[in-house]
Structure formats: structure tokens, C-alpha cells
């Protein structure tokens, strides 16, 4: 009886071979604790020799119920939980969440606050892409790239530490403002970082871009067509790698992104190599945005002063005036007062479009908060893109997707 193989290659060869070499399909679990699955992703694979005939991502190992948690606390209390979505770019998550809730309250934050948010979000993008690049490097056997990326990332974390007081879980944004103003000289440090970063980035990319060893592992592997990328709801560098020039910072500007000049890099083929190229170029564009934002860094307030029922009054007022003291107690215990209504806001995060859908029935607690996480949507294409690939290519594909399970499972 002739066996039919969906993916002939090695298995068909084996079918023509003597009976002792004939193989049957094997199912294999990759993950949840596999170094190249970047977290607790499990791939349930069906193999025909070394070729995948089926690939089912199994999610949920890091599920914490963040959406339900949000219903049980005030808007500001949820900010630390947004750190833990895409934990490689917490500052960008903080900003996306704060803007979503501010849209609900129809609150406009001052220009200085917007500029600080843009700078932090772009720094977070650089740090996230560095991590993505480094991890992709490891997946394809380039350990040096990872070390150099981490050296740069460490400098960024120093900046985050000076700004927010924490390296990793920043909890920086608040509804209607920020946790605190930028410390003195911080923007100068940011500029200094940008200046020294560009040559080093070129050096790091130079290790990979024209490297035949790396290209053998990434060119023409995991090709996603334009139509597929759109159909599966991909966003961020993965979508742009497939040649779709969608960038929410350009298409639906928020937080003053329309003031800054930058380009949207897109790939031509949609393979792993394109996604790598897009990330490399995006870091350069981010540095461009940061430099512009620092150059015209506006003065003035760093929080919405008029929103007296949303942003707590300054500390010295709380300590000296009874009125502000009561106001502080009200904002903390009742939460920032929001009108009833619902709002959906998407921000262009390092991993893609992070969306918050907030439904409010008034008061300081969301009635429902839905998080659209880019990593989750990006992974939905895995069953399609992995079929027909070699196991070793799956590692490459996963690396090029640059997903974070904290956000995927939330």
C-alpha cells in the first residue's frame, strides 16, 4: 500500500527505502520550556521526517487574567499590570494604556507630557528591538550579537532607572500625566546615548546583514505574503516585513507623533530576513524621533492640571491644604472619575498594535477592559507559516517574530 505524504521530501525518500528506514509521522512538543520559544510557548508539531506537517501553538501558560484584574481596581492601580504585558517595552504599554483612558475622559495632556511619552516609548522600542535582534541572533547561532545588544540595552535601562526609579517594571504613566517629571539633565543623557548608539548599531547590524551564515538561516524562510499578513491581522514589524506600510504613528498619530519626521521601513519579500531588516531600520528611525523630541522639548506642565478629578494634586499641596488632601483621598479611593462610555485605542508598540478597549459605566473603575495584544495576533499565523518548514527553520521563524508571552497570554 502506497503511503501519501503531504510533504514528500525526506519521508517519500524513506518510503522508497528498505522497510527498516520507513518512518511514520511523529508528534513532538516543543516547549513550553524550550530556550528558543522565548517564554512559555508550546508548539504541538506533527513531523514527517524533519519537516513539519502541522503546527499548533498552545498558549495560556502565562495567563494571569489581567483583563479581569482590571475590573477590580481603579484606573491608576492597573498601570503596574500594564508593565507586565510586553515586559520588554513597559514604557510603551504604560503610555498606550494611559492614552486609552484619557481618550475616554476626552482629556488632552500638555505638550511636555506628550513629548516625554514619545521619548520613553521610542526608547522602549529601541530596547525591545535590541532584545528581539539579540534573541534572533542566538536562535541563528550568533551569540556575539546578543551580548552587544545587551550592552546597549543596559545603557537604556540606566536611563529608565534615572527617569522612573525602576529598570524593568517602570509603571511610569498615570491617567492624565506621569509618575514624575524628567530629572534634570536626563534629556542630555538621552541625547548622549543616541549619539553613541548609532555607530554601535551599525557595527551590530554589520555582523549580520551581509553575513552568509545568517542569511542561510533567514532568507526565504518563513515567507508571509502581503495578503496573508493582512488576513491574519499581523501588525508591527512583522506586517511591515511583508511589505505593508502600516504604522499607527503615521496613520493615526497620537501623543504628538505628527510633529516628528520619520520613515516607515517595509520589507519586500516577507521572510525572516526582511523582519530582521525592518527592526534594524526601525531602531534608526526611533533614534531620529528621539533626537527631534529632545531638540524641541517643550516646557510647561507635565500633567493635566485642570483635570482635578483625575490627576492627584502635587505633594506639597496635599501636605498643607485640607482641600487637596481630600481630593487626593478621593482620587485614590474612588479612582480617577471617568464618564460613562467606551473607547478603543491602539498604539504602535514595538511588537505591533497594542489596543485597549475600555468600557466604563462612570466612576473610577473600568467595567470591562479588553487588551488586544500584538504578540497574540502575530502568533496566529504560525500554523500556516510553519507547515512545510524544517524544525531548525521553526527556531528561526520564532526568533524573527519577536513575540512576548507575557503579552500573548496576559
Amino acid at each position, binding site marked *: 500500500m502506497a503511503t501519501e505524504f503531504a510533504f514528500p521530501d525526506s519521508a517519500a525518500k524513506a518510503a522508497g527505502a528498505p522497510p527498516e528506514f520507513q518512518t511514520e509521522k511523529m508528534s513532538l512538543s516543543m516547549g513550553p520550556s524550550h530556550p528558543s520559544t522565548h517564554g512559555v510557548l508550546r508548539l504541538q508539531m506533527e513531523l514527517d521526517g524533519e519537516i513539519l506537517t502541522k503546527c499548533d501553538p498552545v498558549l495560556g501558560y502565562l495567563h494571569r487574567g489581567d483583563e479581569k484584574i482590571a475590573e477590580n481596581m481603579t484606573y491608576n492601580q492597573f498601570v503596574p499590570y500594564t508593565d507586565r504585558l510586553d515586559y520588554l517595552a513597559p514604557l510603551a504599554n504604560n503610555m498606550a494604556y494611559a492614552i486609552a483612558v484619557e481618550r475616554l475622559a476626552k482629556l488632552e495632556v500638555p505638550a511636555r507630557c506628550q513629548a516625554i511619552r514619545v521619548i520613553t516609548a521610542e526608547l522602549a522600542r529601541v530596547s525591545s528591538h535590541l532584545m528581539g535582534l539579540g534573541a534572533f541572533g542566538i536562535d541563528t547561532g550568533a551569540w556575539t550579537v546578543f551580548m552587544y545588544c545587551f550592552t546597549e540595552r543596559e545603557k537604556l535601562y540606566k536611563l529608565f532607572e534615572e527617569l522612573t*526609579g525602576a529598570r524593568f*517594571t517602570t*509603571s511610569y504613566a498615570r491617567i492624565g500625566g506621569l509618575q514624575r517629571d524628567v*530629572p534634570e539633565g536626563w534629556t542630555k543623557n538621552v541625547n548622549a546615548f543616541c549619539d553613541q548608539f548609532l555607530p554601535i548599531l551599525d557595527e551590530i547590524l554589520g555582523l549580520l546583514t551581509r553575513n552568509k551564515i545568517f542569511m542561510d538561516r533567514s532568507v526565504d524562510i518563513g515567507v508571509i505574503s502581503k495578503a496573508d499578513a493582512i488576513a491574519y491581522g499581523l501588525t508591527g514589524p512583522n506586517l511591515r516585513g511583508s511589505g505593508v506600510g502600516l504604522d499607527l504613528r503615521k496613520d493615526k498619530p497620537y501623543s504628538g507623533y505628527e510633529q516628528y519626521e520619520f*520613515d516607515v521601513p517595509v520589507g519586500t519579500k516577507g521572510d525572516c530576513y526582511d523582519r530582521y531588516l525592518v527592526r534594524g531600520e526601525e531602531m534608526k528611525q526611533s533614534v531620529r524621533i528621539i533626537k527631534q523630541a529632545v531638540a524641541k522639548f517643550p516646557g510647561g506642565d507635565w500633567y493635566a492640571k485642570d483635570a482635578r478629578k483625575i490627576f492627584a494634586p502635587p505633594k506639597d499641596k*496635599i501636605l498643607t491644604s485640607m482641600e487637596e488632601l481630600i481630593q487626593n483621598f478621593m482620587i485614590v479611593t474612588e479612582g480617577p472619575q471617568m464618564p460613562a462610555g467606551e473607547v478603543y485605542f491602539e498604539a504602535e508598540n514595538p511588537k505591533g498594535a497594542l489596543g485597549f478597549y475600555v468600557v466604563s459605566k462612570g466612576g473610577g473603575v473600568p467595567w470591562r477592559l479588553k487588551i488586544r495584544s500584538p504578540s497574540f495576533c502575530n502568533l496566529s499565523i504560525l500554523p500556516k507559516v510553519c507547515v512545510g518548514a524544517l524544525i531548525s527553520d521553526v527556531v528561526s521563524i520564532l526568533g524573527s517574530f519577536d513575540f512576548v508571552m507575557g503579552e500573548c497570554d496576559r
Partner: protein
Amino acid sequence: MAVIPLERKPLTFAERTYLPQIASGLWTTFKRIFQPQVTLSYPEQRPAIPPGYRGVPTLVRDPNGREKCVSCQLCEFVCPPKAIRITPGEIPADQADRAHVEKAPQAFDIDMLRCIYCGLCQEVCPEEAIFLQNQYSLSGYTREEMVNHKDKLYELGGTIPDQHYKWDQKKTAAEHGNTH
């Protein structure tokens, strides 16, 4: 809108032999040997902690050595992971100079296994009594050890300069007949 397609120039013959990239990669790593070291030999060398760092939460006393916390329980309320437990109590009778403050914590526990160092407690405190300070590494053998009780919190916190002396001002104001 400026969308720039990324170019992919075909590799030259030399590059297809793998050799130039290997050589230039080795040259890059070789150059890095002579650059300054980027790592610290922790714990012998410690990183510099910037002002405003969010370390272990502590309770502080004012320069007169009096405890500042009035056990309003706002930090207990706001704490997202519910790490803080406060039992309110009266001001002890032997502290007559603080009688007008009315309340002080009888017990104040912060479970460091739950704390996420978000700094919301410090942010909402209306007395500037709780501060996240410089300490960042802590360990213990048991769960009980990881709960910081009131004494430990004051020991960690020490004294912080006070700008306002809020309750002293209130007392003077009250003595002058102005209760606001």
C-alpha cells in the same frame, strides 16, 4: 507618508564564500577587547543608585524622631498586590507631644513576597511617611522572614528631612484659634 522599501543587494562572490564576514566579525570582536569593561563584579562592586530609585518600601521618622505614619491606610488601599497590612492604633499615652495626631499604626506589615515595587504607596501617602529607598537586594529563608514588620520598616527607613512639619503647624494654628 514616507514608506521606504528596504534594499537587498545580492551578495558578491567573495561574500558568498563566507570568508570576508568571518574576518570582519573577528575584527569587530577583537576591537572590543580593548574597550572599557561594561560589566560590574557584583557584589564587590555595586552599581550607583540614582535619586528617586524604587527599592524596598520603608517607613520614615521626622527629624524629631517621631513616627510620621498616621495609619490612614491609603497605601494599604492602593497597593495593587495587597502587600500592606495595617492595624490602626491610638497614640501611646507617654507621647503627649503627639496627642493631637490622634492615630498611629499599631502594626504595619509589608509582605515583601507580594510587593512589586511600583511605588504607588509612596505616591499616595498624604504624610510622606512611606518611602521606597535604596535597598534592592533582600533574601530570607522563610516566608515569615520576608514580611517586614513595623520595627524593621522604621529601622530600614531612618529619618528624612521634613519640609512641612504638618502636625506641628496644625497644633500652632489650633492654639491660635484657627482650626483649618
